[in-house]
């Protein structure tokens, strides 16, 4: 079979004498958690080139958002990064609120911060647990999944669902915290502290783990920036860029937390990066719980917020208000905005365009792991086949977000 010119050129430059083998890895490979295909060119066991094929989980997110009202987009955003759905909800709500020129009540902003950080921890735990289990450290995976489940139970208590939360609304959030939330989150945070220290003992001097992670998949700062990487991957390459600090949204500017950074930008740094970000998120949660203000969690404007059910069932005004909001949707003034939040994987941006009707004209989500996947080729060339798994695991590609 004749090779496409693009590949044969690179391969000749690497080693003209060796024969090149083609290998298609995926789209459903047991070691790659995610539906993705790697079209590999192998020089022995070394990766000479890797063409990454994404899109197997494409569900027309952006097209479907144009079909309903603004509020009806929230369930779709849950299914973007389904390891941290609250952050997606918050990002979309902030974008629409910016177009409307409103702000959620203070308590709702605090709740959004708390749930975003809880989601960030669940996302990091999922990513690290899976990555560790792929290297044989199944104990770590179970410990981390246990911690994650504790937090998912909390998410369920607040929102009613573990993953498909649909918790934010334009102008606030759907439900306030349950009564026992404060005690439960304190227990969960203590538990996370314990499991992080256990995992640290299991991994930080573990020869197998370090050998497999260290020096693999290096992406220098310059490339990381050029490829548009954000979030833990960029910070692992030594760039202290975090949307929560660079463009503070919600009430993030009221909390003290640090932005840890790595040095080399290899897989070990990326793992460490996520490991060190969890305590920072915990700090934010503790501070936010401590100064959580009382008050409503939803804006009072009847053009935006649904009336309480008693009014809907017992008064014609309430019923009409409810009907208009459900059938026609919130009237968002014509305009456009790009609003970014710090997702668990990096900058999660929503570019929304309104034409003044009750339906979005265009909703574009800027998926952080899509950009990270585009740099995978660069990270892999020259490494071994088993390194694909660790590098791919550390990118933390979430199919729902990457393919939308």
């Amino acid at each position, binding site marked *: 079979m004749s090779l496409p010119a693009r590949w044969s050129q690179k391969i000749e430059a690497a080693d003209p004498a060796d024969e090149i083998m083609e290998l298609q890895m995926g789209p459903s490979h047991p070691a790659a958690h995610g539906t993705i295909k790697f*079209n590999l060119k192998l020089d022995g066991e070394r990766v000479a080139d890797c063409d990454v094929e994404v899109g197997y989980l494409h569900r027309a997110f952006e097209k479907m958002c144009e079909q309903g009202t603004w509020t009806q987009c929230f369930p779709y955003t849950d299914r973007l990064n389904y390891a941290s759905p609250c952050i997606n909800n918050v990002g979309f709500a902030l974008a629409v609120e910016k177009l409307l020129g409103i702000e959620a009540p203070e308590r709702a902003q605090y709740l959004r911060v708390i749930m975003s950080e809880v989601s960030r921890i669940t996302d990091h735990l999922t990513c690290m647990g899976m990555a560790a289990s792929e290297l044989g450290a199944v104990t770590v995976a179970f410990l981390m999944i246990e911690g994650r489940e504790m937090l998912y139970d909390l998410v369920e208590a607040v929102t009613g669902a573990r993953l498909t939360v649909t918790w934010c609304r334009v102008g606030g959030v759907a439900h306030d915290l349950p009564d026992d939330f404060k005690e439960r989150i304190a227990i969960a945070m203590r538990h996370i502290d314990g499991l992080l220290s256990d995992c640290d003992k299991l991994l930080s001097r573990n020869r197998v783990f370090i050998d497999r992670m260290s020096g693999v998949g290096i992406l220098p700062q310059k490339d990381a920036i050029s490829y548009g990487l954000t979030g833990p991957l960029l910070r692992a390459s030594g760039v202290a860029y975090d949307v929560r600090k660079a463009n503070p949204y919600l009430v993030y500017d009221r909390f003290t937390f640090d932005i840890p950074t790595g040095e080399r930008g290899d897989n070990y740094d990326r793992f460490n990066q996520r490991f060190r970000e969890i305590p920072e998120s915990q700090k934010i949660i503790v501070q936010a719980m401590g100064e959580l203000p009382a008050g409503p969690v939803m804006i009072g404007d009847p053009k935006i917020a649904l009336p309480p059910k008693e009014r809907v069932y017992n008064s014609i005004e309430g019923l009409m208000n409810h009907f208009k909001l459900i059938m026609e949707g919130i009237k968002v003034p014509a305009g*456009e905005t790009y609003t970014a939040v710090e997702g668990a994987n990096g900058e999660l*941006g929503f570019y929304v365009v309104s034409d003044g009707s009750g339906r979005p*004209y265009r909703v574009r989500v800027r998926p952080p792991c899509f950009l990270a996947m585009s740099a995978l080729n660069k990270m892999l060339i020259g490494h071994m086949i088993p390194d694909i798994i660790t590098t791919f695991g550390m990118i933390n590609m979430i199919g729902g977000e990457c393919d939308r």
Partner: protein
Amino acid sequence: MLTDKLKEKFGADILESGNALGEDSIVIDREKAPEIFRTLHDDADFAFEFLIDVTAVDWLERRPRFDVVYQLKSMSRSTRLRVKIRVGAGDDAWVPSAHPVWKSADWLERECFDMFGITFRGHPDLRRILLYDTFVGHPLRKDYPFQKRQPIVPEIDPITKPLRPTK
């Protein structure tokens, strides 16, 4: 003001500029886009290290029909900028690729091509990315009905047929 500085620098190459909701945006001339991108990236006054996003908006009734929208971010100067290029439909639906300046343009422009059918001239490997090669049409265009079905494509044996065509 960022837009004033841009107008001073590029003059008539900036067709429109504005600041709505605290976000700066400019509309630039397609022919001048490569130089403007290069300056926005290299010039220390702007220093847009990140090409955050590339997408398009289809204004079906308007002429020219499409806005190609670039979101830029400068980390060192802590600014954001939205750059738009207006292009028409059919043969006119092309813009110069930003890939020589930012590598993130690679996949972002492929996606925009996939979804809107806008050609990025000078892109090293412009092919569909989220959809398959035999997909008919470009689904995020406003004249593509959201319930439209696609023809069933015959199965291709990956062993006897080459992999996805590459440029």
